[in-house]
């Protein structure tokens, strides 16, 4: 804190410094390449972590930045997943265009739902998102002629990426693809959160009454960010479909909505890297714990969550930031 407030006379410099890439960020993204070299047999897991991280990032835009808690975000993930799957099933297996269509359709759904969402706050908002998510689950189950119902959608086959790279058993293509998409959408989100719009979102999170008192168009902001978030979630769902060539009701179920919320809060909501770190820690922990004991892995995961809340409030990144700050102020 002391560093920040040290007599910055020019406001431009200060904000520019905030927007600049920190060396830790560069290191983080370089580290995402390590699985190719160090753990090539974990690439399938790595690609699913990247997809989950993207999904968590989409939730972070509405929850971490605009303060909209959602327990039904799987609706968009699932909508994108089914869209991507159906396009492929109907004979168009080209991944990139499929992903765009998945994003677009999830965005349309998100835009429509945003008119309901923007009207509510607090528990009512949570229950609305939950209710709409569960409704979509039931629709997907009922419409088994379209979605394959509980058996899952059959007949999803992707063409090679860019006409060259097949989706292989080891997950090289899957991870490369998921990682690039994650990185691009991360750049987009980073740009968004550093924009005037991003500032307005934080304003909505911090104080909606004050937003009205400065004449802000909060509801239209909420609709915009909800739509963008839905589109990104749809991309994540589409990626899952394309890299695994399967779609099931699991993509829209309550568990997925709850998991992504846990992942984001675990990592630290309101920080772009929160969802990414949360996804890595949660999924690696689950993979390792369930490898050790497939039956009772819930136990150590539960203890992990409890410990994070007790010792690192505001998620792992939030807690670390506080520790670093207090360490800095002590060392000065």
């Amino acid at each position, binding site marked *: 804190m002391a560093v920040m*407030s040290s*007599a910055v006379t020019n406001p431009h410099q200060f904000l520019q410094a905030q927007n600049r890439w920190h060396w830790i960020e560069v290191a983080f993204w370089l580290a995402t390449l390590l699985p190719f070299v160090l753990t090539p047999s974990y690439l399938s897991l790595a690609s699913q972590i990247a997809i989950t991280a993207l999904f968590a990032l989409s939730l972070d835009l509405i929850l971490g930045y605009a303060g909209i808690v959602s327990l039904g975000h799987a609706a968009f993930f699932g909508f994108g997943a089914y869209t991507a799957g159906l396009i492929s099933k109907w004979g168009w297996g080209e991944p990139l265009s499929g992903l765009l269509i998945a994003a677009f359709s999830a965005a349309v759904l998100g835009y429509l739902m945003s008119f309901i969402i923007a009207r509510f706050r607090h528990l009512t908002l949570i229950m609305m998102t939950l209710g709409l998510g569960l409704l979509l689950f039931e629709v997907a189950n009922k419409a088994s002629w379209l979605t394959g119902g509980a058996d899952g959608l059959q007949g999803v086959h992707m063409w090679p990426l860019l006409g060259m790279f097949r989706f292989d058993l080891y997950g090289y293509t899957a991870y490369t693809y998921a990682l690039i998409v994650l990185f691009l959408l991360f750049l987009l989100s980073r740009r968004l959160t550093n924009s005037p719009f991003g500032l*307005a979102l934080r304003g909505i999170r911090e*104080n909606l009454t004050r937003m009205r008192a400065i*004449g802000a168009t909060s509801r239209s902001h909420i609709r*915009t960010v909800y739509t963008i978030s839905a589109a990104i979630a749809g991309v994540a769902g589409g990626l899952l479909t394309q890299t695994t060539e399967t779609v099931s009701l699991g993509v829209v179920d309550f568990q997925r909505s709850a998991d992504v919320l846990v992942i984001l809060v675990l990592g630290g909501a309101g920080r772009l890297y929160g969802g990414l770190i949360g996804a890595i820690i949660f999924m690696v922990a689950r993979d390792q714990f369930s490898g050790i004991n497939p039956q009772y892995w819930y136990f150590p995961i539960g203890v992990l969550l409890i410990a994070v809340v007790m010792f690192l409030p505001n998620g792992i990144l939030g807690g670390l930031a506080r520790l670093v700050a207090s360490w800095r102020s002590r060392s000065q």
Partner: protein
Amino acid sequence: MSTPVLSTRGLDKNFGSLVVAKDIEIALPKGVRYALIGPNGAGKTTLINLITGMLQPDVGQIFLGDEEITRLGPEQRVRRGLVRTFQINTLFPNLTALEAVTLAVCERRGDAKTWWRPITAYGEVLDEAYSILTSLLLAPVCNRPTRELAYGQQRLLEIALALATRPKVLLLDEPAAGVPRDESSELFAAITSLSQDITVLFIEHDMNIVFKLASRIIVMVGGRILVEGTPAEIAADPRVREVYLGGAHHG
């Protein structure tokens, strides 16, 4: 006489059987400093809430210039120049002062919808926000999160946020509430130095300040306007004395 900048006609508001506003008629000309006084529970904050649209009146109309704004939402009224501050700090705790004022400027200019350009690309917005903060002596702390500012600085930030919207009419709800008297001079200096294009209505309990700042005074009691006049008229009015002296035991 030209059209008043802000006027109301016959505003009524009840909460159940409790009358909080009854037949409120005001007309504020451009540039005038109005004080709104009255004992606790007189309905002063309610009136501000009604005017700014945080509450809807049961009956009556509100005009900003010639335009009726009775049915507009609070944010629409703000964009037309009708702006308020809050008696209890209503700020963005985790935004820096500069970010908060920048946000208000962006909203005014319609830039807040832009999500593809970084905020650093808006040089003139930052300059404007910074100059508002400078004028309110907040520049040295502008990069601190709001929650870390001193209480008096937060009160100033309330005004800074309102100014960033370029108000025509500014409603200040006890701007110095909670600020020790010897520290409130900065605040009132700021209010005094506001542009004469801005019409100001402020709620204040300290009569010394009221009489020093206001060019006209409205006295409210029990949800009604008791009397309106110049400071001298109000000081001489026996009904006001009755309310403030005789009514002391109500307080």
